[in-house]
């Protein structure tokens, strides 16, 4: 079974007020 992934997200406001969300997977340690 692959290691579970945990989602990371960082939200920023664009200059015109729209949002942008940068997603990634957090590093996880081997079980």
């Amino acid at each position, binding site marked *: *079974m*692959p*290691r*579970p*992934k945990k*989602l990371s*997200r960082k939200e920023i406001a*664009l200059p*015109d007020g*729209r*949002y*942008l*969300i*940068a*997603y*990634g*997977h957090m590093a996880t340690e081997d079980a």
Partner: protein
Amino acid sequence: MPELRFDPLRKEWVAYATERNDRTFLPTDFCPLCPSGHGGASEVPLDTFEVVVFENRFPAFGPDRHDGRPVRPATTGCEVVVYTPEHELTLARLPLERVRLLVDVWADRYRELGSRREVGYVYIFENKGEEVGVTLHHPHGQIYAMPFIPPFAKAELDASREHLDRSGECLHCAEIAAEASGPRVVLSDSSTLAFVPRSARWPYEVHLYPRRHVASIADLDEAERWDLAQALLGVTGAYDRQFGFSTPYVMAVHQAPTDDGEWPQAHLHFEFYPPHRRGDRLKYLAGVELGAGTFVNDTRPEDTAAQLRDAAALQPSNRP
């Protein structure tokens, strides 16, 4: 600004978004979806990223600014999902880990957008290739947070509900069981199944399902998410190998609505509609399809499935 009008003859909503007519169209010297660094001019002012989601600058559904107008307000929104900072890649050529992240991102957007009171359906899709009208080549998909359940999804949900009420069984689960060992399978593993549907509209149409009855992408467990990521690479890679070029398609994700209803009949699946009927010919929607609503398919699903199955068999598995 966006608005919706209801057609009483067809009983369907039509979205109007006149600003989209002037949206960026196949730029050659600048990509709005490439990272441009802090303060940069693109839509992604970051040095780099893995997957980003942002509000579409040219939404088909957007904030309601029509107080008092006799139109249903388009109070929801549209997002762009950029799969990678690498401009030349495609979904089919992404690393498995990136597709796995994409599955998680779709699940997160489904939950978040679907939690908005006014959003009835979170529609995730990808248009790939100029043949299906794409205006930016950088690998990306889109999400429409719609204030109603779109007609194709509604028709499937209604049919599946009738079947459920009559037989106690999900119609999609029945289709999976019927197709699983049949001549239209494209690829299969422990938790996913992809096949050309028995009554495919498009010559190389493929439906990709999680075998387990899950209503939405957010309901997939860890192993199923890996399998789905691998299967997405398998289907899109099979297209590229079958045709010998980066194959255009529309990818549509059908899942449970996010209104206040109960949807026990909903079963998550991905539908792919490539416009090619052979490598050098496109299938066009014309008089019979557009005027009568009946698709004419020049191929047999069993034959195209066999071709895609052979192409899918060449897909390397790179699961961790």
